[in-house]
């Protein structure tokens, strides 16, 4: 398979292009003319302080927010994403920073929420969904046992596993991960890192929001840094050091050497 770097060098059409995206909340420009793109099998890190606008930017792609201006292209075609259902039809799956779980439902109901498996009579098939849920959780978090309890009874890490499972189960082509390891311990964080490598190898494109610069250096192909709603710049990870990324985040300036 052609690597994402070669694809970019060939000038191939990205699977996702977000061009000049702007969105304001009551006068505050949360995202201001930001452009990012993503190739198959590529992991693009989104970095920046709290409040930089990272979550808002990706929520435009996942259909949670409506942009004020800008355009989204999927495989070169301009698309309208006006709600989360639209995003799902483009095989865009999202792990939200807030996890977006219904606390009163069990893991399987959350995993299949909005896409339930039904019986021939159109009734929800809880047994089949639980069986699928057991399978996928077995691969993701083998210690997971609480299948019949509401997710409010789970630990932060277990809840995060459910949110991750939901995003990867439905054959995502484009995956958005907003601080997916925030609630995880070191071991589970390592498992998510391995998962990202696997998904990447399958040709899935991933936007990864993470505060850990080392993790970004390890997992990502490129990184886009945001500050105060604006894009500081996008760099190739191979061309920069940890310190370069940190200074981009803190100073909001792109290092001279690295141009991507």
């Amino acid at each position, binding site marked *: 398979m052609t690597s994402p770097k070669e694809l970019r060098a060939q000038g191939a059409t990205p699977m996702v292009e977000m061009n000049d995206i702007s969105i304001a909340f009551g006068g505050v420009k949360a995202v201001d003319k930001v452009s990012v793109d993503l190739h198959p099998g590529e992991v693009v890190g989104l970095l920046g302080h709290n409040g930089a606008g990272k979550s808002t930017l990706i929520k435009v792609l*996942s259909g*949670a927010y409506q942009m004020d201006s800008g355009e989204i292209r999927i495989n070169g075609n301009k698309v309208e994403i006006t*709600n*989360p*259902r639209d995003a*799902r039809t483009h095989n865009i799956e*999202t792990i*939200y920073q*807030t*996890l*977006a*779980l*219904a*606390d*009163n*439902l069990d893991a399987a*109901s*959350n995993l299949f*929420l*909005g*896409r*339930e498996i*039904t019986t021939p009579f*159109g*009734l*929800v098939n809880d*047994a*089949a969904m*639980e*069986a699928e849920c*057991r*399978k*996928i*959780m*077995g*691969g*993701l978090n*083998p210690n*997971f*046992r609480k299948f019949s309890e*509401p997710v*409010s*009874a789970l630990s932060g890490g277990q809840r995060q596993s459910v949110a991750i499972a939901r995003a*990867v189960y439905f054959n995502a082509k484009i995956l958005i991960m907003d601080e997916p390891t925030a609630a995880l311990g070191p071991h589970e964080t390592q498992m998510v890192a391995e*998962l990202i490598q*696997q*998904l990447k190898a399958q040709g899935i494109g991933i936007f990864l929001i993470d505060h850990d610069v080392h993790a970004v250096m390890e997992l990502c192909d490129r990184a886009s840094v945001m500050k105060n709603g604006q894009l500081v710049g996008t760099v190739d990870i191979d061309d920069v050091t940890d310190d370069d990324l940190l200074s981009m985040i803190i100073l909001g300036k792109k290092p001279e050497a690295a141009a991507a």
Partner: protein
Amino acid sequence: MTETTSQPIPEQQKRGLFQQLELDMRLLGMIGAFVILCIGFNILTDGRFLTPRNIFNLTIQTVSVAIMATGMVFVIVTRHIDLSVGALLATCSAVMAMTQTELLPHVLGLGLNHPVTWAVTIVVGLAAGTLIGAFHGWMVGYLTIPAFIVTLGGLLVWRNVAWYMTDGQTIGPLDKTFMMFGGINGTMGTTWSWIIGLVAAALAVAAILNGRRAKLAHEFPVKPIWAETVICGLTAGSILGFVWILNSYQIPARRLKRMMEAQGETMPEGLVVGYGLPISVLILIGVAVVMTIVAQRTRLGRYIFATGGNPDAAELSGINTRMLTVKIFALMGFLCALSAVVASARLANHSNDIGTLDELRVIAAAVIGGTALSGGIGTIYGAILGALIMQSLHSGMAMVGVDAPFQNIVVGTVLVAAVWIDIVYRKRLGAK
């Protein structure tokens, strides 16, 4: 991730006999409270409370509030409230009263007891209730006006629309067939009641066994056979016991004689005939079954509970929560209209104050039945049991001779206490 080995299911630990039954402790607690209540009143009334006659009356008095309480569960589960159900019931009742006494006889030329009158009337009433409910839901969901305000306004509006439509007059008598939906004027008789009871018991047992089969098919843990047998026995036993009690309430000899004379027959000496299941109770049972299936086995129900648990999560999962709100309130309106059929048929007329304060009874029934106002939690059977407990308290106290003001003081106290006990119980369980 690509690995799809099934996870080993933990060995079922040795547990107490009682735990193996996997009974719902909340339900058990409520049934326990209800049984204690009934026995207490029975002692205080020297055995008058638990007679077939009183149980029959209690049941038909509960139906109207219980039907609406099942809909209120969905409303409250999604963090809304409906203060207009009593007023909406009045409007639906007025619409149906005017349809059968004015509209059909004078405009279409169908008489009051014409064979299609009752059916047309009910269809018109149900349509009116559903439309008004949907309108409330549209204002809540799409205009984002809080449900409290929409339905508080609705309470004033619909109570007085009903008044305006009828000039505040009591409208009656109503159609003979229509009045069969009220309770004592329409019962199935003993034979049919037994047949219905047997079929219901068989269906209930089949449903339990079916659930077990589905679990076994996926190799999930199931209850031991003996526990399953006990549950089946208890279920079938309660259904048939209920039929037996209602069947043992006999039609008084004088009334029976009049009924037979009306049909041109003479009553043989010593004939005893039981009432059997009232049609209104069958309607409630049908509503309970359908609403339970909706809550637990349909996407609609799943979305209702998901939205109640976390509205943002539901929205982000692609659920159209606005349309969902419209559907929930439309369903509530439909159930108000159904209750209006039962309530006005039971009274044999439409009166201007029909359904007054029902909104409070309905909300209290749902809440006593374990529906949490914070959303996401509630059961249909709980709400029906809640309605039954409230009605038992009222009629029990009336039979004991408790003064009216004290009756309401007690019911109000019970409401608050029940919710408090529920909060303590949930904290013990560690859930929120």
